[in-house]
């Protein structure tokens, strides 16, 4: 029979239920693929014993005809999610030996539905990065290469391990998190589908916090349908997270294949940024064409505060991070480096435990929250954020159902190529995705093309609050037209 790792999540689900394949076989095939793909450094921890035990339990239910929504489906978990009795590092030295005594709500929901955990996936340290180069456990290498070149490319970030593992068929889907683009940008770089749900759709409980008003968990998968299946299990109200919203989770899979005829799609003119490559421009035009052919109506819209989203983000996110990361003090958990007194112990612990990017962001956050600067920076940024959100609300009030934009300003770049001299160069990766977090909206990145170098490029759809269903319907139209993109195996 065909290699089980070549199946989509939906195909594997059907094969399991049709008893053409056992959960154990499916899991073993993935564990084998993971072992062979260690040069990609996608997993920071493989959990084969746990995976096999979970698969065997799923097989019992499958044999009894009592299959749950995700029974026997092997997944990778971003190492930002706390997993009970399984190390969770957030990609940081400060949590190198942290073993949670509790399970995050999102992963608990996946296990409730019968999914199998293959291991923990690499990410930028505390999800701060756009290339997975800030992880204490080393860069993730993208399974994609430029045509005729063996230059190692980044998979994007911060969910770079998740995107690389999904693209390289090292799991059927993965959990990820998105604070400024950390699901959608790596999905675009690896030819996978990434969904950042509406703020409040998924519980943040047990997810290592970066910037609490922006963080949101979501899936990365190989097809739009697979991402819809995963989100349905991940989402839902959780009393342990006061920002989690108490509204019913729809059957997202039912939105796949639904007609988009008559839907009004906004094309924000401010997303045509200076220096945007012809190929991104071409892809955007192509995307518009596909949606139009499917019966959607295109309208040009204006989001006048778009250019201020990224600078406002680089005040709000570091400010929240500096507050959230104050908990790493070498006392209750994590690394401790001793000093002459308690203050020196704190300072040395945080110097040694955090990497360069994390220290830089904590310091910026500390500065913008400090006495005398709070109003000039933080309050002003939060006002700008209100304006960014109003831009979207105005468009939606005028009947726009969703917006179409490019997902990233470029294709993937080489490891070590960006951000060396100026951190802002790296931040510009998120120029198209960050507005969505600032406004709390749902967004999906769907692969649309490969460029002349043979690298995938993605389109982004932005939806109304809690209308992920329209994004799945529209995303499927793009997938049907563009096809799917798989890297050629070299590892």
């Amino acid at each position, binding site marked *: 029979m065909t290699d089980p790792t070549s199946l989509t999540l939906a195909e594997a689900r059907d094969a399991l239920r049709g008893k053409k394949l056992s959960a154990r076989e499916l899991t073993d095939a993935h564990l084998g693929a993971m072992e062979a793909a260690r040069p990609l450094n996608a997993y920071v921890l493989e959990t084969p014993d746990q995976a096999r035990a979970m698969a065997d339990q799923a097989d019992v239910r499958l044999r009894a005809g009592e299959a749950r929504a995700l029974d026997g489906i092997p997944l990778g978990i971003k190492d930002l999610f706390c997993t009970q009795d399984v190390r969770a590092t957030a990609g940081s030295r400060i949590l190198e030996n*942290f*073993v949670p*005594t*509790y399970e995050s709500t999102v992963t608990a929901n996946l296990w409730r539905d019968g999914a199998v955990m293959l291991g923990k996936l690499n990410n930028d340290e505390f999800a701060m990065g756009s290339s997975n180069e800030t992880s204490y456990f080393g860069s993730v290498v993208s399974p994609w290469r430029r045509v005729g070149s063996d230059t190692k490319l980044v998979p994007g970030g911060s969910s770079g391990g998740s995107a690389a593992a999904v693209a390289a068929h090292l799991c059927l889907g993965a959990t990820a998190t998105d604070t400024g683009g950390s699901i959608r940008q790596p999905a675009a770089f690896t030819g996978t589908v990434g969904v950042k749900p509406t*703020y*409040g759709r998924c519980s943040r409980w047990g997810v290592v916090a970066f910037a609490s*008003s922006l963080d949101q968990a979501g899936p990365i998968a190989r097809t739009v349908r697979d991402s819809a299946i995963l989100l349905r299990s991940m989402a839902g109200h959780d*009393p342990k997270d*006061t*920002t989690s919203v108490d509204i019913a989770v729809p059957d997202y899979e039912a939105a796949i294949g639904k007609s988009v005829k008559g839907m009004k799609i906004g094309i924000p003119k401010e997303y045509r940024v200076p220096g945007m490559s012809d190929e991104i421009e071409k892809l955007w035009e192509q995307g518009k064409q596909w949606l139009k052919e499917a019966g959607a109506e295109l309208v040009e819209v204006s989001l006048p*505060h778009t*250019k*201020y989203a990224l600078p*406002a983000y*680089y*005040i709000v996110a570091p400010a929240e991070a*500096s507050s959230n990361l104050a908990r790493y*003090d*070498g*006392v*209750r958990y*994590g*690394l*401790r480096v001793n000093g002459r007194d*308690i*203050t020196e*112990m*704190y*300072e*040395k612990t*945080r*110097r040694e435990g*955090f990497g360069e990017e994390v*220290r*830089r962001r*904590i*310091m*910026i956050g*500390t*500065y913008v929250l*400090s006495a005398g*600067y709070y109003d000039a*920076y933080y*309050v*002003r*940024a*939060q*006002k*700008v*954020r*209100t*304006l960014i*959100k109003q831009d979207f609300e105005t468009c939606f009030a005028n009947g726009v159902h969703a917006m179409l934009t490019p997902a990233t300003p470029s294709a993937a770049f080489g490891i070590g190529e960006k951000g060396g001299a*100026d*951190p*802002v160069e790296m*931040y510009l990766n998120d120029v198209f995705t960050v507005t969505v977090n*600032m*406004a709390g909206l749902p967004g999906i990145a769907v692969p649309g093309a490969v460029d002349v170098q043979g690298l995938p490029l993605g389109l982004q759809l932005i939806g109304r*609050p809690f209308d992920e269903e329209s994004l799945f319907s529209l995303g499927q139209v793009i997938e049907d037209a563009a096809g799917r993109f798989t890297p050629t195996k070299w590892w």
Partner: protein
Amino acid sequence: MSVDDKTVRRIAHLARIAVAEDEVAHLRGELNAMLAFVEQLSEVDVSGVEPMTSVTPMRMKSRDDVITDGEIPDDIVRNAPAREDHFFVVPKVVE
């Protein structure tokens, strides 16, 4: 606005991050690059605009004031770098 070496040392201390003397100049450059980037926000007219406090309209939930969790001291101290019984051990803080 930009920061000088003295401010870099002050921020580092506020953030409880040790900074070696030879790192200060480099850090100052990076922090100033970020501050220069966010400077463009000053051109936005924000008069009469409320700062965002909640990205989705929601009311803070309340629940009955009862204990719902606890009796797990072993779990609480399990990851502590230094502990004695159910206590965290820290360097002496009171002379």
